[in-house]
């Protein structure tokens, strides 16, 4: 599903604050797998996840999503690939405060040709699925952390993505909520989605259901 | 109802109000046309040359006859008559070239 070849990402290249976030990484994420990117903070997990999810382009190397080489794709197409293929779950949830649960979930589909009613129906389906129906008209900032994370998951799922990318999804959740979240991710995996989780939470990576653990340190992959 | 419908309805209502006002204005304008003809004829009959808007100074009352140094023509130390003085343009300069 995802194929990375000698990918390097350098931020602020050529400036004094130059940072090499990802160095010469090659890896393969098979379709329908559940993989974990493991490593301490600052090891380059998030950057790598961003590269996989077409959030930014690598400074060097090749990234293939499906059959498409996206490393050199113009922004327009990159966005399209991102929208159609990936669903993101962020560490800080990154919901739009002040608007309702339902609207947050609907957001990714706004700039598409899909009619608003259809988007709403879909969003309601997703929200119901995540057990948030009672809260769908609430503004998101009033929700608990676990609920917010579920809204974020709902938003990632609305476009019926193939790949779910989760960045430290349990960082702000207690054990019970973390388990609940893991349950949801496993269910998605069970439905045939490819799941990649960046985390340093043993609750996530030390589990039998994880098919592939990729350990990172200082921007490189630590050989297993 | 979706918010954008409410918004578009609001814009439509405002546009319609404006159009109505404009139509009403046009109606009033046309209806008062005979009145203006009457005023024109009165200006001719009474030989009036200026509008009676500002009456505090002669140059404000009769800009058509104001002198080029008009702001001080009323009284040597007259203060400038504030609003009218700044709204009234000085007498048209061409007149100087034409006849004086």
């Amino acid at each position, binding site marked *: 599903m995802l194929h990375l070849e000698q990918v390097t990402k350098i931020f602020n290249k050529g400036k004094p604050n130059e940072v090499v976030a990802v160095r010469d990484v090659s890896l393969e994420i098979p379709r329908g797998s559940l993989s974990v990117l493991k490593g301490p903070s600052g090891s380059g997990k*998030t950057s790598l*996840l*961003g*590269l996989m999810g077409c*959030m*930014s382009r690598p400074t060097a190397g090749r990234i293939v999503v499906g059959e498409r080489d996206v490393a050199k794709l113009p*922004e327009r197409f990159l966005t399209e690939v991102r*929208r*159609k293929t990936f669903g*993101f779950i*962020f560490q800080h949830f*990154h*919901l*739009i405060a002040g608007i309702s649960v339902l609207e947050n979930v609907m957001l990714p589909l*706004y*700039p*598409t*040709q899909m*009619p608003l009613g259809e988007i709403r129906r879909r969003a309601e389906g997703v929200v119901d699925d995540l057990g948030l129906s009672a809260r769908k008209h609430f503004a998101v900032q009033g929700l608990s952390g676990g609920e917010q994370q579920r809204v974020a998951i709902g*938003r*990632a799922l609305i476009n019926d993505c193939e790949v779910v990318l989760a960045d430290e999804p349990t960082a702000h959740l207690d054990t019970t909520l973390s388990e609940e979240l893991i349950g949801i991710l496993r269910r998605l995996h069970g439905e045939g989605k490819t799941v990649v989780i960046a985390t340093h939470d043993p609750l996530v990576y030390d589990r039998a259901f994880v098919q592939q653990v990729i350990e990172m340190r200082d921007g490189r992959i630590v050989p297993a | 109802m979706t918010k*954008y419908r409410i*918004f578009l309805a609001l*814009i439509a209502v*405002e546009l319609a109000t*404006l159009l109505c006002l404009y139509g009403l*204005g046009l109606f*009033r*304008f046309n209806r008062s046309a005979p009145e203006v003809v*009457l*005023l*024109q*004829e*009165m*200006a001719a*009959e*009474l*030989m*009036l040359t*200026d*509008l*009676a808007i*500002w*009456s*505090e*100074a*002669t140059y404000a*009352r009769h*800009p*058509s*006859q104001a*002198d080029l140094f008009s702001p001080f*023509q009323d009284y040597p130390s007259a203060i400038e*008559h504030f*609003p009218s003085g700044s*709204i009234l*343009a000085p007498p048209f300069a061409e*007149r100087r070239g*034409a*006849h004086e």
Partner: protein
Amino acid sequence: MSKHLKILEFVLSSLLRRKFKNLGIVAVFSFVVFILASILFLTHAFKAESLAILEGAPELIVHKIAGGRHDLTALRYGDEIAGIPGVGRVLPRYWGYYYDVSTGANYTIMGATGSPRSTLQLVRGAFIEAGQRGVCVLGQGVAEARLTGLNGIVPIMGANGELYRFQVVGVFTDPSTLLTNDLMLIAPEDIREIFDIRPDMATDIVVQVFNPSEVANVAKKIKYRFPELRPITRTEILRTYETLFSWRSGLVILTFVGALVAFGILAWDKATGLSAEEKKEIGILKAIGWETSDILALKFWEGAVLSLVSFLTGLIAAYLHVFFFGASVFAPALKGWSVIFPEFRLRPTIDPYQIFVLIFLTVLPYIAATIVPSWKTAITDPDIVMRG
């Protein structure tokens, strides 16, 4: 359904989050549009009105200049001017200003007589008959200032120090205020007496010219023959009135420059600094699949919603203000020192060009101020949001 409508939907939800701040912006913005539009409407209507009415003004007036000042004009000039080819009737005018101590108002007193057909339709009561003395026809402003009406008495102090009493036989009606508000018409004999005008003199002379294209020529000839006279043509009067109401020179604009500048600062402040929260939101939207162009559309609609609502609201308010409520907000400012000031009943005339100027001055800059600063954020890679 167009994706713009959905983006608009999100914009509205988004704006509603900061209800009071955005309502505040709409209120201030509407007010600015209201003021600007009121000024434009008012001056345009004034201009149109004066140009229309003064079409009837005399083609040519001649008066004497003595030492650079307006002087009484001898009637003999009239006889000689009548001899110039193309000149029709030559009539003396008697008029002057009168400061009324008791009301603190200036009147324009004018000699008039006969039965002018059209004027009669604008007068309640009667007009001054030929040879009738001691009577007057008052403009509404004068009548109101003196708290008098038909059959009332208006005392006037003559140049000789004597008090003359004039009985009010007629009062000008409402539609004529723009032309007659401060007028007091009395018999020519009376005005000669109270202003001490010698029998062979007049205030000025009105010259009728048969062919309109000859007016300038006649004026030139008069100026050439009598350097001490000053001819004033109607074209010049109309032109003066046209520049007079030119909106650029308006005091009211000056008065509200403060408001304009404040609004400009507001817009600029909004324009130059996207808040961290706004930047984050743009990042989130990009991360979940919005394109740069979608973000710019979002910002466009954000500016368009606020400015469109404000613009239309301001425009409606200004229209009502100027044409239905007689520009009552500006009246005190426009009035200045005038004790007698007409109540405007302006006829609604609107120049589409002005509307475009208004849009150009308000809506477009605001939308630009909303879009431009978000440009830089919109084109950056969304992965910055992940590290935030």
